[in-house]
């Protein structure tokens, strides 16, 4: 059986172009602003996935590559 390199599939499966990193909510400093974060942490489990971390790193490298290309 020939050895198959999964690199190509894995790379395209990452789809980092559509990786929308959730923006941090602006911390209001008002007197009535909630001190605790009332949002459930489980709401965005996607960000806890290891592939998401990898995607974020890849995005940084991709941006750096594009910067090098267009310099």
């Amino acid at each position, binding site marked *: 059986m020939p050895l198959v390199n999964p*690199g190509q599939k894995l790379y395209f499966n990452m789809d980092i172009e559509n990786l929308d990193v959730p923006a941090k909510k602006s911390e209001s400093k008002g007197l009535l602003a909630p001190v605790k974060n009332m949002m459930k942490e489980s709401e965005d489990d996607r960000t806890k996935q*290891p592939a998401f971390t990898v995607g974020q790193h*890849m995005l940084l490298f991709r941006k750096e*590559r594009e910067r090098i290309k267009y310099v």
Partner: protein
Amino acid sequence: MFDAPIPGMSLTHELGARPWQSPAQYTTVDEAVEYYLERMSTDEFMNQMADVLEMNVPVTTLANTIQLAGVMDGKHSVDVGMLVMPLLMEMIMLIGDNAGVNYDSGLTDAPNNTTKDTLIEAVRKEMQEKINEAEEESKEPEQEEIEEEPKSGLMARR
């Protein structure tokens, strides 16, 4: 084909004798990413990688080899290696771009009909060696003739 391991060959060692049979050193993707980034950001590694990319070795092959070596060294498991692989590819491509190398990403399915420079160079070397050998062989008999000592025996013809 006949170099392949025979069935049961992997069971000829005690369980746990191989690095990949014991628990991995880095169990999470974050740890594995940190390990690879640290290794790949050294000047020595980057220079070597640029040389390899110059030889037209596909990035996918390099990334697969690197992560496979990590698995075999017991650094991380196969699944962590699979998750880390796209990042390795991106990092390798960054190194290539940084060094200004026109590398083969290995991401295109289209058959590459161009002849690789490295292949031409290998053939040229092989041919050169054959020519050198043939030249040496043709020279050898002449030298022997020159080096022939004059016969000085009692019965030698004069």
